[in-house]
Structures are given as structure tokens and as C-alpha cells.
């Protein structure tokens, strides 16, 4: 065999293997999501007789049953209020702090930054009791505010870290030009850093929204009343009460997932940026 031909064969062989690996992981990535969707449209009878295939007779009524009859639309609203508020406030606090870290030099900066990073290392379970008692003393258990306030703290350290990285990417000369043009520190933030750093702010926002939407632990402990439960807690609550109605549990999961899927499809670049920025730069 000529070396050229052998080279060609090994190269296409390697290509075959690498494409094979990629396709396998595409299937692994998609299968559970696919399973969730098809299960949500099946009847009880089909759950065991037909696990993999599409339902013979899609039961769209499952969605009506869960959303309207079981009142799940309320959980959707709760999740929107919860995750929306957490996102807005986390981004706000992160932007302010990151502006200080990225643009100014001040005494104690390093110490403060380490203090912020400590927040990344604290388990939410660890702080449960003091947080619970704090909320109790403020009469905030089973309220939106009580769910929102501590949840912000869980994403704040990451937010500050990420925004600091983004703001540090703004060229120094741009900040210099703005100062010479007469910006106060506040104007520098609102008229230059925020507009210029908008892609970064979007990236942080989608990630914080994803986390808050999917978060489970604090809402589980703080929102025990059903009318306050966000989707994450409702899914588990529902599962506890209808253990063997897999098709309905799947329906609740799909209802929880679809808004995130839509967000992901439309803001892919922001997700990508948010995930990679802190790690690579």
C-alpha cells in the first residue's frame, strides 16, 4: 500500500471514529429529553408496552389536565416571578460590584474579591438553618420575597466574578476617554460600561435565570404552601402525590423545560459567552 493511500485510509478511519463518537453523544444528549416529551403524550397503558417509540395516539389532554385542572399554570407564574426577580436583582448587584473591581484600584480590593469568591464555595444546605431562622424572624417564610432574597445570594458571587471578567475586557483607553470627556463615576457606569458590556450582562442574565428557574433546594424549604411553589418544587410535589402517573409527571417536566428550551434556542450566544468567559479569559 502506498504511504499516501495508507495516510488517506487512517485519516478517514479517524474521521469515522470521531464522527461516530459525536453521533453517540448527540443521541445520549437528546434521548432523555426525547423520552420526557414522548412520555408526556402517552396513556397509562402505553407507558410499559411502548417505551421508545412515539405515542400511537398523542394525549395532548395531559397538558390540559396538568396545567388547568391541576392548576399548574400557577406554578409557571410563580417560577416566572421568582426567576425573573432573582435575575434582575442579581445582575444589578453584580454589575455594581464588578464595576468597582474591574475599573478602580482601592485599598482592600484583594480581600474583598476573596470574600466574594468564598460565596462560590458555600453549600446551600450548609446555610439552611440560619437562613431559615432569619426569614422566620422577618416573617418572610412562604412569601415570594422570602424565596427570592436568599436565592440571589447563591448566584451573586458567580455574577460578580463573571461581570468583573467582562468589564475588564473593556479597553482602558475607552474608560480614559470617558473620564476626559467629563463622566462622573456613575456616568461612566451607566453611559459607557453598561452599554459596552451589554453582551456580558445578557450572558449573565440568561445563566442566572436558568439557575433560578431550575433551582430546587431553597424554594423547597421556604415555599411549603402550594400556591407559592415554583415549577421545580411542584414537579417533586406532584411526583409525591401521583407516583405512578409517569405520563403526568413527564407533562409537568415538559412544562418546566419548554420555557428554558425557548430561551436557550434564542439566546445561545449569550449562554455560550456566559459559560466560557469566566473560565477562559
Amino acid at each position: 500500500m502506498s504511504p499516501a493511500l495508507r495516510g488517506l485510509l487512517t485519516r478517514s478511519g479517524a474521521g469515522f471514529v470521531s464522527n461516530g463518537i459525536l453521533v453517540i453523544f448527540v443521541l445520549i444528549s437528546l434521548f432523555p429529553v426525547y423520552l420526557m416529551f414522548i412520555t408526556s403524550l402517552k396513556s397509562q397503558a402505553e407507558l410499559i408496552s411502548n417505551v421508545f417509540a412515539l405515542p400511537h395516539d398523542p394525549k395532548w389532554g395531559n397538558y390540559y389536565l396538568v396545567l388547568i385542572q391541576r392548576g399548574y399554570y400557577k406554578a409557571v407564574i410563580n417560577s416566572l416571578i421568582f426567576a425573573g426577580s432573582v435575575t434582575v436583582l442579581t445582575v444589578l448587584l453584580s454589575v455594581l460590584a464588578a464595576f468597582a473591581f474591574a475599573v478602580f484600584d482601592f485599598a482592600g480590593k484583594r480581600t474583598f474579591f476573596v470574600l466574594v469568591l468564598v460565596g462560590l464555595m458555600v453549600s446551600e444546605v450548609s446555610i439552611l438553618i440560619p437562613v431559615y431562622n432569619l426569614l422566620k424572624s422577618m416573617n418572610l417564610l412562604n412569601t415570594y420575597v422570602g424565596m427570592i432574597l436568599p436565592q440571589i445570594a447563591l448566584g451573586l458571587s458567580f455574577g460578580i466574578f463573571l461581570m468583573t471578567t467582562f468589564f475588564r475586557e473593556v479597553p482602558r483607553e475607552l474608560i480614559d476617554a470617558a473620564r476626559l470627556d467629563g463622566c462622573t463615576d456613575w456616568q461612566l457606569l451607566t453611559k459607557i460600561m453598561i452599554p459596552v458590556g451589554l453582551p456580558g450582562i445578557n450572558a449573565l442574565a440568561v445563566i442566572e435565570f436558568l439557575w433560578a428557574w431550575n433551582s430546587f433546594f431553597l424554594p423547597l424549604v421556604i415555599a411549603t404552601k402550594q400556591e407559592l411553589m415554583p415549577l421545580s418544587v411542584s414537579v417533586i410535589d406532584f411526583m409525591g402525590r401521583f407516583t405512578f402517573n409517569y405520563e403526568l409527571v413527564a407533562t409537568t417536566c415538559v412544562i418546566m423545560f419548554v420555557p428554558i428550551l425557548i430561551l436557550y434556542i434564542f439566546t445561545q450566544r449569550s449562554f455560550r459567552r456566559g459559560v466560557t468567559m469566566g473560565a477562559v479569559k
Partner: protein
Amino acid sequence: MIESRGRKSPYLFLAPAIIYLGIWIYYPIAKNFYLSFLGTEGTHGADFRFVGLQNYHQLLSDELFHRALLHNLVWVLLSILVPVVIGLVLAVLLVHKRTRLFYSAIFFLPVTVAPIMAAVVWGWIYNPTFGALNQMLTLIGLDSLAQPWLGDAATALVSVNMIGSWGYYGFCTLIFLAGLQNIDPEIFEAARIDGANALQQFRSITLPLLKPTLTFVLVYTTIGSMKFFDIIYVATKGGPDNSTQIVAVYMFDLFIRQGDVNYAAAMSVVLTAIILAMSLLAIRNMTRKPS
């Protein structure tokens, strides 16, 4: 960098976040530290008294805690061996492909699925009677391997970790891909001209130049693994036979079901200390940037 001798504004911008973290993170840590030295033993009801290091002594002899801690370490190891390695391999396969955006977008999809949802769906896949996994094994003639994946103490920890790995490798792929794209392609061209084959290129160029990214992912994975909670809580609640018991789940159980607040507080202090110690090196790396 704006120098700010005598300038108040950086502190004003910083204050809301720091005060916020103070209330919801630092104060709870301090409160736990305080609580960990109290106990109810020997007195009646909620009448706490100072018991010194007694709760910490108890941790030393609590075999379940030791097991949970060991499971956390196994979890760290598995999370590095499975999703991190997969992510690295996928990123290397993708970096020169024009379809990389498409593939990495699909690989990231599981990351957007809520951990509790992953636990629910994978619970079905693992189900011994109608689960997709066993059915698939039967289909390809490997029915001898079929088993109650989450129900057997021997396979539960690895099986439940695979759920977490499923929701994590796409995250690693994306980060490694960005890291690889940051490496100047001319370096690879130079190496090829110097006669390096694919494996040599990976070992002597990709890995060393990817080191900062690798460090970040390893640190992030380690911290996340030590704090892990959601999936195990939903999938197995630490069972069967405590074979998937990890510190956070055990701690939650102590808080909620057994009401042993002080003991749980001591445990949280130890857990936080371990994570901090493990991250110490990382903190140094990360703070070098903004100073």
C-alpha cells in the same frame, strides 16, 4: 485602572453586594460556627448550652459521616473521570470541525435541564421493570447485565453520578472548546511542520496551553461535587443502604428530619472548611487577575 486615593465611590459600588453577601452568606456561616459549639444534651428541649467540641468529637466517630464524605470524594473523582474527560475529548474532536457550533449546542442542551428533572427522567430510564436502559440491554442480547441500577447498593452511586455527568459534560465541552479556540492555530501548524503526530500535539501543545482552562474546570468540578445535592436527593435520598449518602444530603436529613441542628451545624462548618481548603489554591489563581 482608576486610582482612588480618598475616593469613596468604589466602596459605594461594592457595598450593596458585600452587605448582601454579609446577610445571606457570611452571617449564616458565622451562625453555624456558633451553633456548632452548642448542644441540647443533658438539658430539656430547646435550652441550648455550650458543649465545646462535643459535636466535632461526634463527627470523628460518626461512621455515616465518614461514608458520606468518602462518597463525596468518589463523586469528585467520577465527575472528573467521566464528564470532564468526555468534555475534553469532544472539544478536541470538534475544534477543527465546521459543525462545532451545532454539536456543542446539542451537547449543552442537557446542562439546561433542571437537575431534579434529570433525576426524574433518568429514574425512569434506570427503572428495573420498564426502564429504557434494561430494555435496550435486552434488545441487544445483554439482558444478563440488566439490573435495578439505582436500587442496588453496588451500582447506585455510579448510576446516580451518571445522571449528574449527563448534565455536565456539555458544560465542559463548551469551556474546553473555547479554551482550544484560544490557542493560536499557528502553534499547531508549527508542531505539524516539526513532525509531531496527533497524540504528540495533544500532549505537548494542547494540554500545557489548556492548563488554565483545565485548572478552572477541575476546581469548579471539585467545588460542585462537594456541594452536590439536588439529583441525589430526588433520585435516591441517599439510599439504598446509604450507598449514595453524601454530606449535603446527610446534613439536610439531620436538619429536617432529626432536628439535630447543632450537629448539622458542626458538619456544615467542616464541609465549608474542606471546600475552602481545596479551593485555596484556586483562589490564589483567580485573584491574580483583578489586582
